[in-house]
């Protein structure tokens, strides 16, 4: 009879080997954690945000964190860089990123919406004539953010769409945070466009 431990091709030997490895791993983990977690798990923290110049943009989840909130809008005008505003994109002669045209319908770019669905992106950027002040401003900002997203990764196209549908449904909540009111959605979108915002 073969000894499973001598023949690693035997199924029993493989199972035993995997079991042994798991047990060894667990024992090593036990020694490490039971001995080590009495002390702090982090020895040092280095904050590596640049003080001047471009700041790496944060997604909505990062935006709500205390670290980012403390910095955004601090003296010095910290923001997340120079992305184009609605007025920049609507200006004559500005080249739009591939995949988007001035005649593209808002409803095509934001498939979940009926509000402004029949307007072109250019019309929305210029300012819709109907809707509340928040409707108009946030629609302008999300179109600009969508065009900005062609050359950046944060916020993503999906995050921009989620901001718009979340605004309409009053249910945008990144992570485990409370629902963002329109004012916070506006702050975040403006932050992604280089506007330093402040927090109360």
């Amino acid at each position: 009879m073969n000894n499973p431990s001598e023949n690693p091709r035997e199924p029993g030997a493989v199972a035993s080997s995997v079991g042994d490895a798991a047990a060894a791993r667990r024992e090593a983990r036990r020694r490490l954690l039971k001995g080590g977690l009495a002390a702090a798990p982090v020895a040092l923290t280095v904050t590596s945000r640049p003080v001047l110049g471009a700041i790496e943009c944060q997604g909505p989840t990062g935006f709500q964190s205390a670290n980012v909130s403390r910095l955004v809008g601090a003296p010095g005008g910290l923001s997340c860089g120079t992305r184009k505003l609605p007025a920049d994109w609507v200006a004559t002669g500005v080249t739009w990123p591939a995949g988007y045209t001035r005649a593209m319908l808002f409803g095509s770019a934001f498939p979940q919406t009926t509000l402004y669905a029949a307007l072109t992106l250019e019309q929305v950027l210029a300012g819709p004539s109907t809707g509340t002040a928040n409707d108009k401003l946030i629609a302008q900002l999300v179109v600009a953010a969508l065009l900005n997203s062609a050359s950046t990764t944060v916020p993503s196209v999906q995050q921009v769409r989620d901001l718009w549908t979340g605004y309409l449904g009053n249910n945008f909540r990144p992570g485990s945070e409370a629902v963002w009111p329109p004012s916070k959605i506006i702050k975040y979108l403006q932050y992604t466009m280089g506007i330093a915002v402040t927090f109360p």
Partner: protein
Amino acid sequence: MTEALAAQPLQWRLQAGSPLCFRQLDDQFLVFNAASGDTHLLSASGHELLQFLSEQEARAWSAPALAQALLGESEDADFCLSLEHSLRYFEQLGLLVPVLP
């Protein structure tokens, strides 16, 4: 109902959509948190704990459940308390977020 809620252990999970980036330099471990922009030098036990959590990204953990998953036991009150302190510490650094029961 209130008592039932109060009896539920606290839970934590990683920030959604914000993966952690681990690096090992010699015998030290670093983790970069893209959500905060901070880099943390971890103890070996802190690295083991955070690495495990990052491998279970979508799940929320209480200290006893984490003890069970890590060591196959959850009866060691001192260890569970150490775990909870570590989870709270990670929360303060923005590496974890609390999950409401």
